[in-house]
């Protein structure tokens, strides 16, 4: 069975600095998707970034980028120029691309990110 591990329960960063959140996963499959979700204090779950395993290029969305290391099964999120609004819980998630898995996501337990002014 697939698992997702976020080894950093809490992290902090100074405003305008860069921070990297780690995520590792375990799977025997070769085709899958990886996601980072953000959950601010408002509780709303927001998709930050998505990576398809068959794509070698790392996904980027504005100040958010990933370092996807398929062989190492690592999927870290880098936040550049951190802003106060980035303070949130961040969840890493995995989804098999295999047909018939009902699109279920496997979730990490989250990393709570504090941004210090």
């Amino acid at each position, binding site marked *: 069975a697939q698992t997702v591990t976020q080894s950093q329960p809490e992290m902090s960063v100074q405003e305008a600095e860069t921070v990297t959140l780690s995520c590792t996963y375990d799977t025997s499959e070769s085709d899958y*998707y990886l996601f980072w979700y953000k959950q601010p204090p408002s*509780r*709303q779950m927001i*998709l930050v970034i*998505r990576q398809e395993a068959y794509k070698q290029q790392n996904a980027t969305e504005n100040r958010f980028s990933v370092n996807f290391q398929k062989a190492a099964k690592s999927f870290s999120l880098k936040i550049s120029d951190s802003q106060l609004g980035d303070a949130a819980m961040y969840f890493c998630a995995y989804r098999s691309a295999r047909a018939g898995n*009902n699109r*279920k*996501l496997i979730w990490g337990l*989250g990393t709570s990110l504090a941004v210090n002014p």
Partner: protein
Amino acid sequence: DAGITQSPRHKVTETGTPVTLRCHQTENHRYMYWYRQDPGHGLRLIHYSYGVKDTDKGEVSDGYSVSRSKTEDFLLTLESATSSQTSVYFCAISGPPGELFFGEGSRLTVL
């Protein structure tokens, strides 16, 4: 933003009473999910649906039932609420390529 609404957003009830949470989508997506979120446990899947009247259990389905009589509505029912079911409940729909879009959550307190 994906059109997902949950109701009620907040509910306080007593042990032993039935509770129904509603999830309504306007996106016509086939897949819908109910999760609960608790400190230290992250998001755990309760039940999901892959079509009208097609549902299946997730990892924490005991004490919960679901129904989906229309594409747009997915109901989660606690037949007899217990204090262990105090949680925040999220509904989600799956769009291509399988990423989830979430509702705003429903906070349930069982006294």
